[in-house]
C-alpha cells in the first residue's frame, strides 16, 4: 500500500490525531507564554524570594526531562491527592516545560532594551509598572520573537510525548494504526509529513507574520 492509499484509508483517525496535537500545542503555548512572562519578570525582580522561586522553577524544568515531568504530573501527583485528566496533564506538562525555557528569553529580551529607555520613561515620571508595561515589554517582545519561533517548533515536537499518557494525539493514533496494521513505513511516514507541515506551514509562517507585524508597529518596516 502506498502512502496515498494509506492516508485515504486512515485519514479520519489521522485528522482526529492532528486536531488533538493542534489543541495540545495551542493550550501549551498559551500556558507557556504566560509562565515565561511571569518567571522572566520574577527572575529580574529585586525581591529575593520571587527571584529565588523563579530560579528554582527554571532549574527544575530545564534540568530534567520533559517525559519525566509529564509522568510526574500524570502519575505521581495523584498520589498526593491531585488528580488531573490526561488531556490537561499533557498540555500542562509541555507548557510548564516550555515556560521555563521561555522565561530566559523574556529575561534576555528585557535586558536587551537599552538603559536609556528606562531613564527616558522615568524622566516623564512613569511608575515602575508603567515603565515595564508601556515602554520596556513592547520593545523586549520584538527582540525576543525570533528565538520564540524556534521554541514554538520545539513545543510542537514536544507535544508528541503526550501520546505516552494515552492522549489521543497524532503520535498516539499513528502508533495505534501501526499496531493493528503493521504498516510502519506508511504510518510513521504520514506522521512525519504532518508534523513537518504543521511546523513549516503553520507555526513558522505565523511567527514570521508576527515579527513583520511588530516591526511595522515599531515603524521599522
Amino acid at each position, binding site marked *: 500500500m502506498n502512502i496515498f492509499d494509506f492516508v485515504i484509508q486512515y485519514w479520519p483517525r489521522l485528522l482526529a490525531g492532528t486536531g488533538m496535537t493542534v489543541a495540545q500545542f495551542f493550550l501549551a503555548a498559551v500556558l507557556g507564554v504566560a509562565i515565561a512572562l511571569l518567571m522572566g519578570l520574577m527572575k529580574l525582580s529585586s525581591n529575593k524570594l520571587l527571584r529565588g522561586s523563579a530560579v528554582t522553577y527554571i532549574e527544575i524544568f530545564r534540568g530534567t526531562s520533559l517525559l519525566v515531568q509529564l509522568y510526574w504530573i500524570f502519575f505521581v501527583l495523584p498520589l498526593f491527592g491531585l488528580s488531573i485528566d490526561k488531556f490537561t496533564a499533557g498540555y500542562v506538562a509541555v507548557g510548564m516545560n516550555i515556560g521555563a525555557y521561555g522565561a530566559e528569553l523574556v529575561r534576555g529580551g528585557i535586558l536587551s532594551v537599552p538603559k536609556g529607555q528606562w531613564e527616558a520613561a522615568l524622566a516623564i*515620571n512613569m511608575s515602575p509598572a508603567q515603565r515595564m508595561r508601556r515602554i520596556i515589554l513592547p520593545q523586549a517582545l520584538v527582540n525576543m520573537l525570533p528565538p520564540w519561533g524556534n521554541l514554538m517548533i520545539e513545543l510542537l515536537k514536544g507535544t508528541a510525548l503526550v501520546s505516552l499518557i494515552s492522549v489521543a494525539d497524532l503520535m498516539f493514533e499513528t502508533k495505534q494504526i501501526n499496531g493493528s496494521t503493521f504498516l510502519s513505513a506508511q504510518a510513521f511516514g504520514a506522521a512525519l509529513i504532518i508534523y513537518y507541515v504543521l511546523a513549516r506551514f503553520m507555526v513558522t509562517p505565523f511567527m514570521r507574520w508576527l515579527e513583520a507585524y511588530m516591526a511595522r508597529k*515599531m*515603524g521599522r518596516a
Partner: protein
Amino acid sequence: MELSGENTPMVSFRKVRKSYGALTVLDDLDLDINAGEMVSIIGPSGSGKTTVLRMLMTLEQINSGVIYVDGKPLTHMPKSGKLVPASERHLRSRRADIGMCFQHFNLFPHMTALENCMEGPVQVLGLPKAEARDRSEKLLELVGMIAKKDQHPSRLSGGQQQRVAIARALAMRPKVMLFDEVTSALDPEVIGEVTNVIRGLVSEHNLTMLMVTHQMGFARDISDRVCFFYGGKIEEQGHPSELFGNPQRERTQQFLSAVREAV
C-alpha cells in the same frame, strides 16, 4: 524642613556628595539656581557634569546632602521632624517638576512622534486623550516637528528626534528642564535646529534650565550663568561674559584655551 523666603531658589544642591565606590564624583556640591535662570555647566570629561543632572532627575541616588526643588526636598522627605531618604512615592510626587533631554534622545521607538509626546500626559498626568493630543501638537509645532508627528523615531534624523524629545519633556510642564549635551550626537549641520529651539525656550518661557554643553559659543550666548566644573567641584562660576572673557582661575583658563585650540 523646607527652604523659604523671598528668593527661594528653584533648585538647590546643599552639600551633595556622590561617589561610585572609592571614586568621589561630586564633593560637597553647593549650587543654587533661581527660577527662570538658564545655567550652563562646562568642564572636562569626567568632571561630574552629567552626574549633576542625573541626580536632579533622580536617576542616581546621592550619598549625602540634600537637593531641594522649588523649596521642597527632592532626595529626602520629612518624617517626625527629620529628613529621611525619599521613598519611591515621594520621588514620584516631586519628580513631576523636572524634565530631561538626553544626549542620545531616547525616544520610544515603538511610538510615533506624537505618541511619544502624549505618553506622559495620558499615562502619568491622566489627561484625556484629546487634551493630551492638543498639548502635544502645540509643542511639536513649537519645535518645528508638526509635519512629522505621525512618523516613528527610526524615520527621523538625529536633530528631528532631539526636537521631539524636547517636546516630549515639555509636555509634562516641568518647572526645571535639564539638557545633557543634547547636540553632541548630532551632525554639525543640524545642531542649529536644536539650539534654536532651546534659544526659543529661553525667551518664551519662564522655565528654569540647566544645560551641560561642549558648545562654548552657545553657552556664552544664552546663559545667565556658567559653571565650570573640575574634578567634581565648581572651580569657577559667573556671568558668561566674565567667565569666558576674563576667567580668574588657572584651570578655567587652561580649559578654555584648550577648547579654543581644538576648534
